[in-house]
């Protein structure tokens, strides 16, 4: 919000005035109102502890604001990246040009668990493997944005983006009269259009039948699944609602079987088809991969799309952009050391006090070491881990994430934030006019993950 110590950036002036005139009593009331609203609509986490009440993510009342020009650059950068990632997937599951060109070594692709051999030689509709991509961004200076990671499988959080806006408009309508905030509520419609534009070749329906496939109510993103299907007006199915007959996929309805054209799946590859992936799996639809490969149904995202967001592949995304699109990357990667390489491992071990070490397959802010903030014993523990299993880790410098004004005990304080906008690629590529801003609610913390005390904010993109 601040340009320097005491100068407020222009586009935050309105918010500053608004904050000044809110008493702490009002803040308390509005916080309680937001919490009640989130509980009532059910935007909660399931926890493993069944007797505990469902948790809600802390919501901060102060929006994070992007100007139109700031956003324009992010938009171009994210779409560029999403296109390159899809081009990469199409390439490695077919000719493998990027390997032949010696840009990415073939071992790190073909030996990965997230690489799916059964996808080899198959091209999904429009060559789109990952139609919904969530890109995690951080900012370290006025124009310095870095991509922290790509999410090409089933990125979640978009329901928070939409509900955060909803509650802000409900609680503070005046804010929206006085600021020109680009609306985001057409996201579900655009998502549906994207899915419909990816109908399989054998689809005869001018309006393809799409469904959202969920693992069920115990999944922590279940609210989002039901929210999105509700907003799109499509069925939310579990795998037991689907079955394969002949060369098509059907859902069981009260009218009898109904053919399904596009499956927006929110379950992992392993649980898609017990005949193809995990024979032990009790969930899944036997035969769906056969239907998929013969063009009877489309699965979004494609099985095996996860290889594109692997932390070891991440390093090569700027190269991909140059290779496939012939463009210079608009958004930078964070400098990353691949511990699999001996030289880089050496550097990491020598400088571990200044670095962040992450598990290649880790997520949710778990299994990572923040060197400057860790005790000697945990650093030693990670040194041993690194030496015994170097290829399981990458390291990055500790980025000085930007601060955003946040209400802590009725006082405005700076807290670190990141941003996940959502990119859709079907017939056209587009970016949500906003995203999910996650905020590290604890003072001095760098971890924004909700599992570790992170909160969320409404994210504004101002109209031109």
């Amino acid at each position, binding site marked *: 919000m601040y340009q320097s110590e005491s100068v407020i950036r222009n586009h935050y002036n309105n918010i500053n005035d608004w904050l000044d005139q809110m008493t702490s009593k009002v803040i308390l009331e509005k916080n309680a109102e937001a919490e009640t609203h989130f509980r009532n609509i059910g935007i909660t986490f399931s926890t493993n502890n069944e007797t505990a009440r469902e948790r809600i993510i802390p919501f901060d009342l102060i929006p994070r604001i992007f100007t139109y020009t700031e956003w324009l650059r992010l938009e171009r950068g994210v779409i560029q990246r999403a296109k390159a990632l899809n081009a990469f997937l199409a390439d490695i599951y077919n000719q493998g040009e990027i390997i032949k060109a010696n840009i990415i070594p073939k071992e790190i692709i073909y030996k990965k668990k997230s690489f799916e051999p059964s996808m080899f030689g198959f091209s999904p509709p429009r060559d789109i493997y990952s139609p919904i991509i969530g890109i995690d961004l951080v900012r370290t200076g006025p124009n310095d944005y870095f991509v922290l990671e790509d999410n090409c499988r089933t990125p979640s959080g978009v329901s928070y983006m939409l509900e955060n806006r909803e509650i802000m408009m409900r609680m503070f309508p005046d804010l929206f009269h006085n600021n020109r905030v680009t609306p985001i509520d057409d996201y579900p419609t655009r998502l549906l259009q994207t899915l419909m534009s990816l109908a399989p070749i054998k689809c005869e329906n001018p309006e393809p039948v799409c469904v959202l496939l969920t693992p069920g109510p115990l999944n922590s993103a279940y609210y989002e699944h039901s929210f999105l299907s509700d907003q799109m007006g*499509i069925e939310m199915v579990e795998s037991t609602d689907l079955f394969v007959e002949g060369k098509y996929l059907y859902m069981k309805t009260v009218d009898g079987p109904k053919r399904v054209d596009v499956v927006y799946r929110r379950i992992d590859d392993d649980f898609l088809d017990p005949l193809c992936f995990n024979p032990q799996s009790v969930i899944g639809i036997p035969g769906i991969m056969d239907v998929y490969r013969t063009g009877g149904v489309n699965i979004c995202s494609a099985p095996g799309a996860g290889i594109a967001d692997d932390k070891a592949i991440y390093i090569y995304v700027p190269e991909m952009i140059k290779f496939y699109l012939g463009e210079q990357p608009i958004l930078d990667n964070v400098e990353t050391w691949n511990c699999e390489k001996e030289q880089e491992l050496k550097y990491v071990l020598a400088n571990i006090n200044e670095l962040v070490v992450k598990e290649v397959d880790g997520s949710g802010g778990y299994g990572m070491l923040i060197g400057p903030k860790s005790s000697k014993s945990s650093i030693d523990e990670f040194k041993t881990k690194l030496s015994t299993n170097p290829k399981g880790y990458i390291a990055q410098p500790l980025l000085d994430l930007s601060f955003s004004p946040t209400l802590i005990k009725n006082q405005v304080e700076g807290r670190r934030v990141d941003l996940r906008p959502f990119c859709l690629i079907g017939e056209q590529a587009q970016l949500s006019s906003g995203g999910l801003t996650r905020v590290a609610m604890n003072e001095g913390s760098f971890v924004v993950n909700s599992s570790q005390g992170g909160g969320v904010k409404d994210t504004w993109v101002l109209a031109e």
Partner: protein
Amino acid sequence: MLSRTAEYLYWISRYMERAETTARLLDVGYRMSLFPNPSGYNNEWESVLSAAGAIEGYKNKYDTIEQKNVEDYLFFDESNPSSVYNCILNARNNALVVRTSFTPESWLAINKTYQEILNLKEQKFTKSDLPGLTEWTIEQVNLFRGSLSSLLRNDGYNFLFLGLFIERADNSARLLDVKYFVLLPKPQYVGGNIDNMQWSILLRSLSSFRAFRWAYDGNITATKIADFLVLNNNCPRSLSFCIQNIVKHLTNLTCSPEKVGRIYNNLKDLNTKIQEEKIETIVEYGLHQFVTQFIRKISSVDNEIHKEFFN
């Protein structure tokens, strides 16, 4: 519509209806407990437990029948499948799965109820709270039913109302039966003041006391009340009203006419019979026998609905 969605909708309204019945039963027990307890009458709380079909479960848990325990068992107990708490929990869990098939208001009505009963459960309740709990439950169920008026009149709507009237038919029949055969005093009490008082309590518990007064002149008699609760098409809790509505929502279904036809064939006789029957004939034949048969028939219709639509 997904078969599973239809099934969940059907059960949501069954659970909500059941929550209301259980709460109303507790109210019956509460009112009766305020009256002197002459010899020859069964313990009112035991009758309430039988009517709720919870007597066995209760006896497994408690040695003696006491108001405090009965209240807890019927309202909050997680081990009692028909407790108000479990009904609301189940309705809410089902609603979570099918919230895409009804309006945001319906989801809110159910989810708010669930959030509130969690709070109620955390607070200790006292004896005098029971009427409050009953009132609260009825209010919540009414909110839910009211929210249904904004639904699309499609098959989902009909499945919701099929569930509601199947459950209500069963509940009303059981309440009637309990009055006659569990509360039944020694023969000399039949038609006496206490007997009539209990009938009035039954009417109140079905929120039909005033309605009954409007519908029938003169004295409250057992026959009149039986006529009201079995055959009166204007009484929204009577068996005949329930059957009519089951037929209506069944035949309004647009999916699978042949399935609808099969279930309708099974139901047709009962419907005709109940429309043409006189209450005197039923009483002569035996209200208990009649009600038992009715309950059996409703349960077979429920089975068929499951078999035809939800598998």
